[in-house]
């Protein structure tokens, strides 16, 4: 009960205190309330701001990372492309270099080969020199031949003259014209006269030889080809003294006809075969006709009949193709049918330039 009494004492105080405190509290309630609201408001705003800040930071972070990622990806592509282009350009440059060198080499070697051209021109001039010298030699040779011919002709003439005037030779008693006693040595004409044989009257023989020539030419007998008979030696007046063989024997041995072996004989290109071939032309000239072609003889009139060549005659006379026509005839083109070019004026058109002689 004591406690209770104490408590009741206190109670009064307590009630007063209570009342005072509550009155104080009540009096400050509004301000405290407002303050509390303010503080809370401020704090909540801070919290919200912090939250918003946080949010924006997060958004920024996300965007930052995302954009970075995108750009890095894009950048990798760009880098790849740039690298690729750089590689290509490099290759192009190198290819240009190679092509440049190759084309220069090729053109210089094959198309506009200057050194080859130079060599060719030098070779051409060398060849020209050679050809010129050869032609010069040839011309000189021809000139010499001409000169030799002229000289020989002159000599022949002089000899002929000497033979004709053989009677001018000096005898033992009378000196001739060319052997004047006042001269120291005889004239060269005198020497020539001494050497030459007198020209005899051979008119008949000359005449007959001409007729002979005429006779031989139309018959076209063999031109002298090679020695068929042994040459006749003049009859020996005195047999030469000494261990000489019989000249006939010697000649026979010298001109023994060739007897080749079968192997040589069979060759087409060996000289005897070729020599045999030389008669080909003769055979063309006198194929079938055994008759000689004699001028002005009655034989000619009686037996000479025209025989056409074999290659042109057919079974029923002459074949038209090969002689009369070689190609298709075109009658419209013939001018032979057109009448009389002569009756119109004939102006003599001289159309010959090189006269064949």
């Amino acid at each position: 009960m004591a406690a209770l009494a104490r408590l009741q004492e206190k109670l009064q105080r307590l009630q007063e205190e209570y009342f005072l405190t509550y009155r104080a509290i009540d009096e400050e309630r509004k301000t405290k309330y407002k303050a509390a609201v303010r503080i809370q408001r401020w704090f909540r705003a801070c919290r919200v701001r912090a939250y918003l800040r946080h949010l924006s930071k997060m958004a920024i972070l996300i965007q930052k990372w995302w954009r970075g990622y995108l750009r890095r990806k894009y950048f990798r592509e760009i880098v790849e492309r740039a690298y690729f282009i750089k590689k290509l350009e490099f290759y192009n440059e190198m290819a240009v270099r190679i092509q440049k060198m190759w084309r220069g080499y090729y053109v210089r070697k094959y198309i506009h080969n200057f050194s080859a051209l130079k060599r060719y021109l030098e070779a051409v001039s060398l060849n020209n020199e050679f050809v010129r010298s050869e032609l010069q030699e040839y011309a000189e040779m021809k000139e010499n031949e001409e000169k030799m011919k002229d000289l020989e002709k002159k000599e022949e003439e002089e000899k002929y003259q000497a033979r004709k005037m053989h009677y001018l030779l000096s005898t033992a008693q009378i000196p001739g014209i060319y052997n004047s006693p006042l001269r120291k040595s005889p004239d060269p004409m005198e020497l020539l006269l001494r050497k030459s044989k007198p020209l005899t009257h051979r008119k008949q023989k000359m005449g007959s030889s001409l007729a002979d020539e005429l006779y031989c030419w139309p018959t076209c007998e063999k031109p002298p080809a090679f020695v068929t008979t042994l040459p006749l030696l003049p009859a020996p007046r005195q047999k030469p003294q000494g261990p000489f063989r019989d000249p006939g024997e010697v000649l026979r041995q010298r001109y023994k006809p060739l007897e080749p072996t079968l192997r040589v004989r069979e060759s087409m290109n060996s000289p005897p075969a070729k020599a045999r071939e030389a008669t080909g032309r003769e055979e063309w000239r006198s194929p079938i006709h055994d008759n000689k072609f004699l001028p002005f003889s009655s034989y000619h009139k009686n037996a000479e009949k025209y025989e056409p060549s074999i290659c042109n005659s057919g079974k029923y006379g002459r074949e038209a193709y090969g002689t009369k026509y070689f190609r298709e005839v075109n009658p419209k083109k013939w001018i032979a049918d057109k009448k009389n070019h002569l009756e119109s004026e004939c102006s003599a058109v001289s159309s010959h330039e090189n006269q064949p002689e």
Partner: protein
Amino acid sequence: MSLRLAYSAVSGRGCVKISVVCLLRPLLLDVIPSVRQTVALALGRLADHDVEMAEAVVKAGILPQLICLLPEENRYYKKTAAFVLRAIAKHSPQLAQAVVQCGALEMLVVCLEDFDPGVKEGASWTFGYIARHNAELSQAVVDAGAVPLLVLCIQEPEIALKRIAASTLSDISKHSPELAQTVVDAGAIAHLAQMITNPDAKLKRQVLSALSQIAKHSVDLAELVVEAEIFPVVLTCLKDSDEYVKKNGATLIREIAKHTPELSQFIVNSGGVAALIDCIGSCRGTVRLPGIMTLGYVAAHSENLSMAVIVSKGISPLSACLIEEHEDHIKAAAAWALGQIGRHTAEHARHVATANVLPTLLDIFVDTRSSEDLKMKTKKALKNILQKCTYLPALEPLLHDAPPNIMKHVIGQFSKVLPHDSKARRLFVTTGGLKKVQEIKAEPGSLLQEYINTINNCYPEEIVRYYSPGYSEILLERVENYQPVL
């Protein structure tokens, strides 16, 4: 009596006309062969002498009688008949046509098959005269089957027969490529090529002429001729003593060279150009002409060949030709050939210009006595050479006397070279070229004015003013108007 008449007619010279022919006509059918022969000889001589007599002979209708029994006659008659026919045929194409119309060709072929060389000669001579006139007559000769027989005639040993056969083949093949091909098909080329080495000059003339007539028509024929291995034997013909052999040899080489560059190359490689140049140098007159044309053709094909011609010393004979020759067509050919040599590159033009050719060409161009053709060719040649010529010392003399159309090219060349070469500019001034350029009057806007402007731009202005005409007057005027500062 008949004989006497015939003999008198033989010696008569054209004063007797148709009456003689009518008198002789019945004698043609006389019994005695020597009368027939003499009559034929008389007719031949009459026809040979005069065109009118030949016409009279044809009009009198003698020809069919002359040749009707020809195969059975003797060889003297055949020779004389051939003589008559060719005496008639040589005058004009119409007479030759008359000869062909009366069926002479078959008889002549019969004569060609004869064994006697004289008869063959007469027959082939007649064929030659007939074929010479035009292509149709040649075709008629070919159709008669003469060509293989002529080729056989060429192989005969007699020189006269070979000559005539070669000349006939030449006359046949000159008209058209088909005729030439017919001659080639008969195997003529090989035999003709063999005969080039024959020593007889007249034969060589005919053979070379025949080969050149064959080769001129087409590339294939020319190649066939070349394949017969005529080079280098043909070059010995260019050294022959006979002028016409040289001329025909040069003609043959010309006909071969003009077709393709390969053939020209072949000729150069075998030394043909050197032989031709020597030949041109040693001849005078028309004989040179084919050689000059050959050089022109060879140089025209390509620049390497042109350089080969230059290297073989080709320019000096050509310029000698220009100066020495009197005939216009030879000068024109030489000018053309020089133009072909010099037109390829600057190098070629320089060689031509250093040979002092340009003033000669200019003189010929300006000369009033030159014909139109010569002037045109010289002008073309000058133009071609000048367009490539960068050798200024040779262009200097041209500045002073050229007519305006040539001057344009000369100034053009100067305007191309002067901007790049300082030494040349100095030389141009010291030799009086700049002075001359200032004196030229050209229409503004024309090409010449542009060139002159280019040249003037290469020099400082004072120099150009110094050299312009009338500068001394301008200076004197300035002296007059000057007020001295006291």
